[in-house]
Each structure stands twice: as C-alpha cells, then as structure tokens.
C-alpha cells in the first residue's frame, strides 16, 4: 500500500483522536474532529490510503474503540509508530486498522510518500529513497487485518466451519 504520511509526536491520546465532546455524536461527526486539536485540517485533508505516523505511546488513554475507528473511518490505511498504548493497539487491530511498530518512525517527515508492507515489516520512503525496517505484523494478526477486523474475521471463520460441517 502507498500513500502520504501525516506525522504526529509522542503520546497522541484517545481524547485527541476521539474528543470526548463528540463521543455521543456517532462516528461520522466524531471523525470530523479527529486530531483537530493538534492539526485542525487533518480530518478535512487526509485522503483514503494515507498513513498516520506517530512517536511513542500512540493512542494513550482510554479504552474507547472510537479512537481507531475514527482513523479508519477517514480512510487511513495504516498507522506507523515507535510504540502504542496497549488497549489502543488491540482495538486498532480488532477494528481492521494495521498498527505498525517501527523504531525509526521518527525518520519519516510530513508529506513523505510511503510504500508500506505491513506483513513483511518494510517501509519504503519514496520521497527520500530510504528503506525502514519495522516489526512484521505476525501472521495471525495479518489474517485478522486482511479480513477487515475481528467481526468480519469471525463471520468468515464461522461460515467456513459451517461449510465443513454441512
């Protein structure tokens, strides 16, 4: 997958991703305010297929599933960060949003064009020609992501099992 990168710093928290003020509003409205307190034009200008790049502890804070859901709703193809808050990481993968762990995420600049291979764990920075090693997404989680998240994954799995039984 390839797209443009949007770069943020350390400790991007779930309140910044899914502001409490709009939590009751539904994902459509909520997503319009995603990251606005650090980058007001983000939600309006991000394009489907783009990447969000962060530093350490991306997704810190609450367990709200709406934080990764807002990014996915905006069409973000994958996240790249040095590290993630645990619950956020789980929620992102379960909702079908690849979260890639890359120790060198800090070398990516805003607007860089990236080519990302989550399963191989490689990022080609097309703007600088640099290649960055990441932790490959493990096969089980890659399958979950390919299916589009936990719900569709379960649907597929159940259909398969029922097919075998009948």
């Amino acid at each position, binding site marked *: 997958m390839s797209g443009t990168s949007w770069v943020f710093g350390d400790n991007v928290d779930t309140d910044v991703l899914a502001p409490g003020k709009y939590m009751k509003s539904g994902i459509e409205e909520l997503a319009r305010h995603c990251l606005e307190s650090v980058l007001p034009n983000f939600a309006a200008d991000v394009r489907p297929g783009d990447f969000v790049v962060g530093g350490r*502890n991306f997704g*810190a804070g609450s*367990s709200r*599933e709406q934080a990764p859901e807002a990014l996915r709703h905006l069409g973000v193809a994958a996240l790249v960060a040095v590290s993630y*808050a*645990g*619950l956020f*990481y*789980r*929620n992102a*993968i*379960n*909702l079908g949003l690849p979260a890639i762990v890359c120790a060198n995420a800090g070398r990516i600049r805003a607007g860089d064009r990236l080519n990302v291979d989550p399963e191989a764990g490689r990022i080609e920075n097309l703007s600088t020609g640099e290649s960055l090693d990441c*932790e490959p997404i*493990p096969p*089980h*989680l890659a399958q*979950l992501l390919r299916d589009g998240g*936990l*719900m569709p994954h*379960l*649907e597929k*799995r*159940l259909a398969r099992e029922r097919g075998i039984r009948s």
Partner: protein
Amino acid sequence: MPMNEAGSKAYATAQTLAQKIVARAAGKPAVTPGEIVICKLDLALMHDSGGPRRVKPLLEHLGARVWNPDRVVVVTDHYLPAHDDESRRIIEIARDWVRDAGVRNFYDGMGICHVVLPEKGHLRPGMFAVGGDSHSPTGGAFGAYMFGIGATEMLGVLVTGEIWLRVPQTILLEWTGRLADGIAAKDMMLAMCGKLGLDGGQYQAVQYSGETITALSMQERMTLCNMAPEVGAQTGLIAPDEVTRAWLEEAGVTKIDTSRWQGDPGAAVAAHHCFDAAALAPQVAAPHSPANAAPVAEHAGTRIDIAYIGACTGAKLEDMRMAARVLKGRRAASQVRLILAPASRRDQEIARAEGTLDAIIDAGASLLPTACGICAGYGANRLEENEVAITSTARNFKGRMGAASSRVYLGSAYTVAASAVAGHICDPREMLP
C-alpha cells in the same frame, strides 16, 4: 558438551511467571516478550454493564454460540439495585441471556464481580483469563494471568475461546520491610501510582514481590492487583504461595499447584522498582487521578461531605474491619454522609456475624447493597455538584462518581473512616485503639 549447552540454553530462556502462564495458554514450551501468540482461555468474566447487553446482539448477528458456557462467569453488580427502567432492562437481559446461553455460573446480586469470582472458587494459579472490565487483573492475586478487554474482543472470546496477546515484559515492584499499624495495601498501591504514574506500567505485566507482599492477606493482595491498570499495566501478578493455597482451599478449589507457577530465578525483567514498607505513611490521592498520591498530611484538614467505603478495591471484609477498628465507639461528623457498600454478600454476612458491620452502622453509616454503587457512577447515590468525597475506591477521574464538579480523594478504609469522624481528611493512626 551437549549437556552444558542444553543447561545454558535453559538458563538463557528463564521465564517470568507471566511468560509461564502465557506459554501454557499458548500451547508452547516458552514465549518471548514482544512475540504475539494465540492463547486459549480458561475463563471469561462478564458483568451486567459490559457483558450480555453488549455481546448478545453481536452473537445473534453472527448466529454464533458460546464456545464453552462452563468457562463463562456472569455477575450482576453495576446496575444493582435497578433504580429505573433502563437498569431493570439491563439486568433482565443478563438473566435471560445466561439461561439461553447455558451459562450456569451466574451470580445475581451476590457482590462485585472481581470479589465474587474467587469467592466462588473460579480462580486458581496458572489460569489464563479475561474479564469485560478494566479491573479484571484482580485475579492476579491468585497467580492467574487476567486482564480487561472491550466488548468486541469479548465477542471474539465467546465465539472462539481464544485471544491474541503480545507477550508482556515484567516490571517488578518489590516491597521490603513491615507496614506500620493503620497502613494498608491501598496505601502501598497509591504510593506506586504516585511513583510510576498512569502509564508507568506500559501495558506490560507488573509483579508485586518481596517480604511485605508475602506477609499480606489475600484480600490485601487483591487490592494491589485490582489497581494494576491504574499504573497502566495490562495485568498485575503475585506469585502464589501457602497463603494463596489456604484461601483457595477454603473457597473449595482443588488441584492447586503453587510450585509450578513461580518465575524462574534470573528471568529478565524490564524494570525493577523497590519500595520501603516501613517508611510508608497513609496515602491520599487528590482529584482527579490516582497518580496524585501523597502522604495524608498534605491533604489533612480538607473538608469532606461524603465518606464512602465501597468498591471491589475497598469494601472487602478486611477493608470493613479496618473501618470498624477506627469507627468502633465513634460517630461520623454530623455534616458527613458515611456510606458503606460491602463488596460481597459473603463478606457482609461475616462482617455482620462478627460485629464489624454494626460498628460501622452504629457510627452512622448507611448501608447500600453489595454492588458497585457510587463507584460506577450509576444509580441514585451519585455525587452531586461540588460535593467532596473521600472513598476507598480505585479511581477518581473527573466525573466518574457523579457530577463533573464533584471532587474525589482516594484513601484506605482506615483513612476514609477516620476522615468521616473528623469531618475532614485526617491521619487514621491518630484514631487507632
């Protein structure tokens, strides 16, 4: 020499307690921190709020059934007593769902899920378990690897009996020395919250160790593991010992293996923090974070409206005994509302039989049902605008227990009781018999 090679290899892969439990659940001889594994669950705990009412429609959408109803435990605690139509409906869904799903381990109004679960003999060392509640690591007090998950993940667990896990590193929190009289596990935990901060645990496993921990009772150990999420850990663990065994045997648990569920000497840990129990003063965490912990002296004199002895963290039998020691023969200050919500029916009955309950009630406490009560911020007793409370609960985030303008201080049951008598936050050591 091959023998030596094998020996040194075994040493190089020394495993922490967390790794051993995860490895067993993943069906592997050993696991490495950072590795992602699929674990089979021994148990899944749900309560009325995050449980049936959320997963029932999802299960129906999938047309799926629970993988093994005997491994599921459901407890009603958050919306009891049901004070309006909405809470009655939520409780009804739970009752109907367990019947339809064939879940026999259903405890309705018996107490708070994290306390009822071990009481009813559902936990044992080495288990791998999840709960649909963030304080699920309470099970770590029994040497079980247990953590909280959201509703979507719980659906996955119910359908497959499995969950993925990034094998955690272990952060060792070691305590030495003896606690002074009037100091409790809650004070230890608040001190750790103050030192580590809300994210010091990095979603890894924290393990409490050292002579102070070994000397703690099971209910006090539960308080520590319960609040592991308050330092940002995925789970909190205490290696099982004879105290664990004795407690579990009384709860009717058999086949308890304590020797297998110990970390290997020399297993690598991510960090090792040391604390001195002898130097610990009662701790109070100021609004709006458990990390705002400081010795009680810093907040002494702060006027309070409500003193609440409640929650899975702070109203177990031993918490009630602490409060009773302070309150016996005393009365809460006239302007303070003293409230007790025992953590479980069992603890309440024991407290009643031994006179502990009376000591608290005679001091002017009103008795709420054995449920989450004010801690969950639901129900009729929520904090009003601008009210100031001192509570034995786990969290004091803004607005959690009621109005956004209410202010909650956290302390041990000793400190809550003493503050109720004084009418302001005070050091309980002044009131011990």
